[in-house]
């Protein structure tokens, strides 16, 4: 009996469990410090930088990288690419968890988290962009939850409830796309109120457009990236339908992403030209801007095109990682690196180690939740009772 128990215990001691366990323990300790000692105890935020990496990474990058949900759902249900059907549920789950984690991160970042529902239910600041961001996140999170619920109902065997939600799929998808269009762009619009703080190479009246278009590329790349990881580590959960369509999804999304990145590059050039900012390219920030634009936008656009033409799947997968990193870099540039660019270096913000621990903790919680859900509910496979009913 005791031998069996010790064997069971040892089977839980995998490298994944040990690492995630340590991160979660560290995260919980910092959580206690944050909510007992306040923001000053765990962050380097000040009056110049009221928003740090919890906004730059957890919120701006989290929302952009969760765009796979609306891009995949739109491709399948709005544009009629039914061959991407098998990619919808993993993408919607990633998006749903991404948005849940965004809201979780906001609880750490705002001074009085118990007031988060106020702008929606108590007092609406309808002239504020942040109100629009908050409203869209609230509504879109609800939509994503409803979009994912059929998987939960299939798992639980609640057929009638599932039928009601499945009938609403198209309405939910359209509502989700509209909400995403609104709030991906409104995150960019937030920074249009700070023309004197943001470096001219990143500041533009087109920031909302840049954020929206780049989020499509981020979403498509995340679906490729997440699909690749899932294929490696959750292959046992996938049915033949998912495996058969996997290559089509990768090739199609690579072509789409190349096209979107081309458009994004063109828009960035128009922004640069319209504001006549060419002379800044010869400065240090100009070189950094070119690294972002050429290395993380133009290069992936080209590599995706080459990969899709030659059916070169490893190239497409590495390019997806490059694109995801490029979007993260762009959001960091806008919200931190090129923000307050005129401040002397001693006044610049660098995140506290506890801020980084919380960000890593939140991502880890997301990975554990994804693994928990996708190994139980029909995410990578069709439930035997509902085969061919999507």
């Amino acid at each position, binding site marked *: 009996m005791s031998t069996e128990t010790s064997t069971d215990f040892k089977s839980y001691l995998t490298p994944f469990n040990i690492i995630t366990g340590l991160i979660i323990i560290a995260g919980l300790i910092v959580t206690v410090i944050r909510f007992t000692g306040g923001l000053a105890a765990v962050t380097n935020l000040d009056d110049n930088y009221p928003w740090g990496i919890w906004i730059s990474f957890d919120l701006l990058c989290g929302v952009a990288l969760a765009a796979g949900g609306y891009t995949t759902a739109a491709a399948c249900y709005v544009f009629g690419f039914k061959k991407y059907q098998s990619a919808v549920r993993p993408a919607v789950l990633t998006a749903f968890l991404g948005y849940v984690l965004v809201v979780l991160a906001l609880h750490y970042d705002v001074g009085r988290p118990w007031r988060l529902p106020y702008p929606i239910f108590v007092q609406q600041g309808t002239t504020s962009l942040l109100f629009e961001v908050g409203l869209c996140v609230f509504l879109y999170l609800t939509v994503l939850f409803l979009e994912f619920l059929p998987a939960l109902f299939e798992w639980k065997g609640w057929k009638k409830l599932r039928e009601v939600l499945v009938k609403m799929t198209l309405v939910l998808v359209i509502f989700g796309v509209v909400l995403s269009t609104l709030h991906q762009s409104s995150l960019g619009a937030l920074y249009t109120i700070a023309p004197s703080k943001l470096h001219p190479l990143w500041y533009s009246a087109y920031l909302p457009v840049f954020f929206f278009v780049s989020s499509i590329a981020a979403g498509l790349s995340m679906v490729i990236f997440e699909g690749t990881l899932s294929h490696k580590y959750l292959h046992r959960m996938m049915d033949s339908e998912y495996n058969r369509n996997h290559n089509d999804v990768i090739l199609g999304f690579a072509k789409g992403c190349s096209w979107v990145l081309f*458009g994004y590059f063109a828009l960035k*050039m128009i922004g640069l030209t319209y504001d006549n900012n060419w002379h800044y390219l010869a400065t240090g920030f100009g070189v950094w801007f070119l690294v972002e634009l050429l290395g993380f936008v133009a290069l992936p656009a080209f590599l995706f095109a080459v990969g899709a033409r030659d059916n070169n799947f490893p190239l497409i997968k590495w390019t997806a990682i490059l694109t995801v990193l490029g979007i993260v870099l762009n959001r960091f540039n806008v919200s931190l690196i090129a923000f307050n660019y005129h401040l002397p270096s001693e006044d610049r913000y660098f995140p506290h180690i506890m801020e980084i621990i919380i960000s890593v903790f939140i991502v880890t919680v997301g990975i554990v939740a994804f693994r928990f859900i996708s190994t139980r509910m029909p995410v990578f496979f069709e439930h035997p009772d509902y085969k061919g009913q999507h």
Partner: protein
Amino acid sequence: MEFSSLHEFFMHTKTMTYLLMGGILVGAVLWWQFLMGEKRQIENPHQTDEENGQGHGH
């Protein structure tokens, strides 16, 4: 380049932007062709496979 008024600045940048947009339109067509692979011959329904250039195992 020197600008003595905001109007002059806008006129200059707008002109440049229009030129760039024209270039992007041409570039977009070329990019599409590159992305979608080699150009395939359009079949003529009034010709045989061999006349359409598909008689060699295509």
